[in-house]
């Protein structure tokens, strides 16, 4: 908390330079998608050791005047789930990625950022991020020759 407190003036100096609609925050979260609100079933699932199978990761992003919600990105474990057969993925309303752990990996992160930057065409926006391990340090983007034309990435201090 004290680290954050000390860093707040710096954060505000950066945020204040952008209008509210141009300040975004993105974060990811796990979702146990068919977890039921029943302790008996949850215990049963834990004993069956398949509770992890049911977790996906979701990427959530919005701007500070709440005029824009970026469409969800969902990270699952299976690249071509059977239920997607015959479905045009562009109509799902969210992007889908997959990896063995259903985690936010650096690869998914990089693709998400490039897509976000394209959407911000013609604008200069600020994207606030936390220091989660799937997130790529800024200097590594430079090494990868990845350039964001419309987005300034700002890493928030850890709690």
């Amino acid at each position, binding site marked *: 908390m004290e680290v954050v407190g000390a860093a707040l003036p710096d954060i505000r100096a950066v945020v204040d330079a952008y209008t509210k609609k141009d300040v975004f925050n993105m974060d990811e979260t796990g979702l146990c998608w068919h977890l039921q609100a029943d302790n008996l079933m949850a215990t049963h699932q834990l004993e069956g050791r398949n509770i992890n199978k049911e977790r996906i990761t979701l990427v959530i992003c919005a701007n500070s005047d709440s005029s824009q919600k970026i469409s969800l990105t969902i990270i699952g474990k299976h690249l*071509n789930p059977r239920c997607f057969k015959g479905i045009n993925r562009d109509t799902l309303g969210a992007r889908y990625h997959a*990896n063995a752990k259903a*985690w936010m990996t650096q690869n998914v992160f990089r693709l998400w950022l490039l897509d976000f930057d394209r959407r911000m065409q013609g604008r200069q926006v600020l994207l606030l991020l936390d220091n989660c391990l799937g997130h790529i340090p800024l200097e590594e983007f430079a090494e990868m020759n990845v350039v964001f034309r419309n987005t300034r990435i700002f890493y928030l201090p850890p709690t």
Partner: protein
Amino acid sequence: MSSVVQPCDAGIIRTFKAYYRKRFNNLLLDGYENNIDIPEKINILDVFRLAVPAWVEDVSPATIANCFRHCKIRTSNIIHTQQGEVGPPIALIQELQHQVAHLPYGNPMDIRNILNYSEENNYMVVSNDEDITNCIIEELYLQQDEDAANDNDDSVEPPKISTR
């Protein structure tokens, strides 16, 4: 590592999840009412159909704006004392409780527990560099296998890569 100055953590994600649970519970209640066998057996496509409207339609702009203000990351927000709700609206929590009371549960969970379910923080828990490497390798493998995997179904697990 999450941050206390992060609006998503302040309540945007919790609110989204509460709406997801509401839509999921509705699906269960409808399923039981229509005598569907194991209504909780949903697939990832169903998850899109629940999660996308929960985000696009349900999470209110007011909640998002409140969460940004709450973090006081803008100078003009420091003096603002009236905060507004930063989590799921009370009416939504009550509705979730009402739904759970109508589901055939042996030992219903407190709604707060399901909205702060610890397993869900596990989106990038990595114990060491090897885990990260393996995760990336497996992801690359999945990409290469895209064509070959066209007929695979959900039951096909990606290959296990030994860490020892």
